[in-house]
């Protein structure tokens, strides 16, 4: 405590925070599907989304974390709540919650799980490869590299989306535009 200011970066990616955030995310996810009240589910989903934003921060991706908070927690979830309050939730909460398509859901969930596990198994090998090349993933202890990676992250993001990946970016924009048009056409009988 009596020393001067700590010049290096304090490590963010401590196991404690990872387990805290991951636990919160999983707990929120479980609550989303088990609550009978739609508003409670939506609130649990917000908890999950915010903890995922925290996990992004731990991965040294502050921009993605910020976007996650603005778009999902701040924008989409408010609209969710808005819609839930407008529709008749009282009747919906009495419906059976698990309908006949649950086997399909189970298969989809298992596939996704398998994907994640394989990514994890392969990912640790990729991690070794990058470390050999002096590249960096969050487990690295080289704070200098962490700092350089962190600085100008938004800048690099912009260069990638508007440079190398312009086409994918524009396709995504077009998709969103089509969705907006579809929503307008569906709601407006007479345009």
């Amino acid at each position, binding site marked *: *405590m*009596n020393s*001067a*200011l*700590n*010049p*290096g*970066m*304090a490590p963010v990616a401590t196991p404690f925070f990872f387990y805290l955030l991951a636990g919160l995310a999983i707990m929120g996810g479980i609550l989303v599907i088990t609550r009978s*009240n739609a*508003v*409670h589910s939506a*609130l649990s989903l*917000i908890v999950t989304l915010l903890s995922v934003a925290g996990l992004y921060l731990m991965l040294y991706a*502050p*921009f993605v*974390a*910020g*976007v996650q*908070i*603005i778009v999902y*927690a*701040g*924008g989409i*979830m*408010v*609209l969710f*709540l*808005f819609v839930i*309050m*407008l529709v008749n939730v009282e009747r919906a909460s009495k419906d059976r919650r698990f309908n006949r398509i649950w086997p399909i859901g189970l298969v989809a969930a298992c596939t996704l799980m398998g994907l994640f596990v394989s990514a994890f198994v392969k990912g640790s090998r990729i991690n070794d490869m990058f470390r050999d090349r002096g590249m960096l993933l969050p487990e690295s202890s080289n704070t200098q590299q962490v700092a350089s990676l*962190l*600085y*100008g*992250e*938004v*800048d690099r993001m912009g260069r990638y989306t508007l440079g190398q990946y312009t086409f994918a970016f524009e396709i995504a924009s077009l998709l969103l535009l089509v969705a907006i048009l579809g929503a307008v056409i569906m709601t407006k009988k007479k345009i």
Partner: protein
Amino acid sequence: MPNFIMSYLGSTLTPGEAGNQFWALVYVLVIFAGVSVAVIAMNWIERKALAHFQIRLGPMRVGPHGLLQPFADALKLMLKEDIIPSEADQFVFWVAPLIGLLAAFTVYTVIPFGPSQAVSDMNIGILFMLGVSSLGVLGIVVAGWASNSNYPLIGALRSSAQMVSYEVAMGLAVVSAILMTSLNSTGTGTLSMIGIVQAQQQQGVWFIFKFFPLGFIAFAIFAIAMVAETNRAPFDMAEAESELTAGYHTEYSGFRWSLFMLSEYAAMIAVSSIAVTLWLGGWMRPFPNLLHAPAWEFVFSLFPALTFGGLAAIAFIGTVRMPSHSFFKIQRIGLAVFGALLGLVALLLLLIAIAGHSADETLASRFKESIGHVYWFVLKVAVFMYLFIWYRATWPRYRFDQLMKIGWKVMLPISLGVLMITAIVGVIFS
């Protein structure tokens, strides 16, 4: 221990940058206390100013000129019964005010009161601020729903629709300011709050005057949208008392209600600081590049002392003008003591300014600089806070459809247009 404090005062890093948890905690506590005091002061000024706008006196009984009224109010709210309606959703009703409060106060992590006077300087500062302050609407929506009552629900629906709509125009206005930060030799902009102010310093112009009138239009859009974002008059649809009793917090009472008030005022200060940081040069004093001679430096460093001296003078005038009836004796003594305290602060600031002027690169000069930064920042924010009161006293409330029409059909196209023109002009001139 003194060594420790000195080592901090000599540094030019924010605690977050330096990775120093202890000073970060101190900063958080100082900011929390400061904001709470500001909210108390704002409460008093708002009641007094509104009263004077309407040719009334306002609170006069509790303390001299009602100076102790906010404390009396706070005490009353603490002692009031805290009612949770039996039909309400207990847990959500309980948690709703806390969501708003957390969102309003978390934002202060990145507000730069000076080049090193912030808890942390994030790489995504402005994005973080917008994101977290947009979470505040969740508190309102959830409060309205959990009350299980019609007026709060309508208030919550209105408020969520309003805030989501105005966020769009607000975000686009912010983007056009961020675009201006990239007009330097490297062509790289920044989202960091400190970086944005430094960019203004580098380019030698506050962004409100940059590419006149483009910067000004973006600023005006933000200034309108931020009133709607904080649910203040004339956009206070969510709590329109003539239509919805008290809107989303109709069912709240006592302490929980006061949390809503606290978070509303904290959010007002937060959005004002965004406006100040982005367009009004943040902590910079007027003309830092033009009038940079030591003499000017000294003149501007006298401003904090002068402000407190002026406040002390007003307090003393009030003491003299107090009616001479014995009933006012205690009030007169109280006001005189208050004035004397303000005068002492003024004297201290004056001493620091003089000591910092004569010596170079010492603790006193560092101190003088920090005080100057915080002073100019707070002064600019205070102007906005007064504007909030002025709006409320001047303009009648909008109708909800008018509000939506302005948001989507006027502000959004204008902000998009300003963004595009700013980009074009920026490319041409750089």
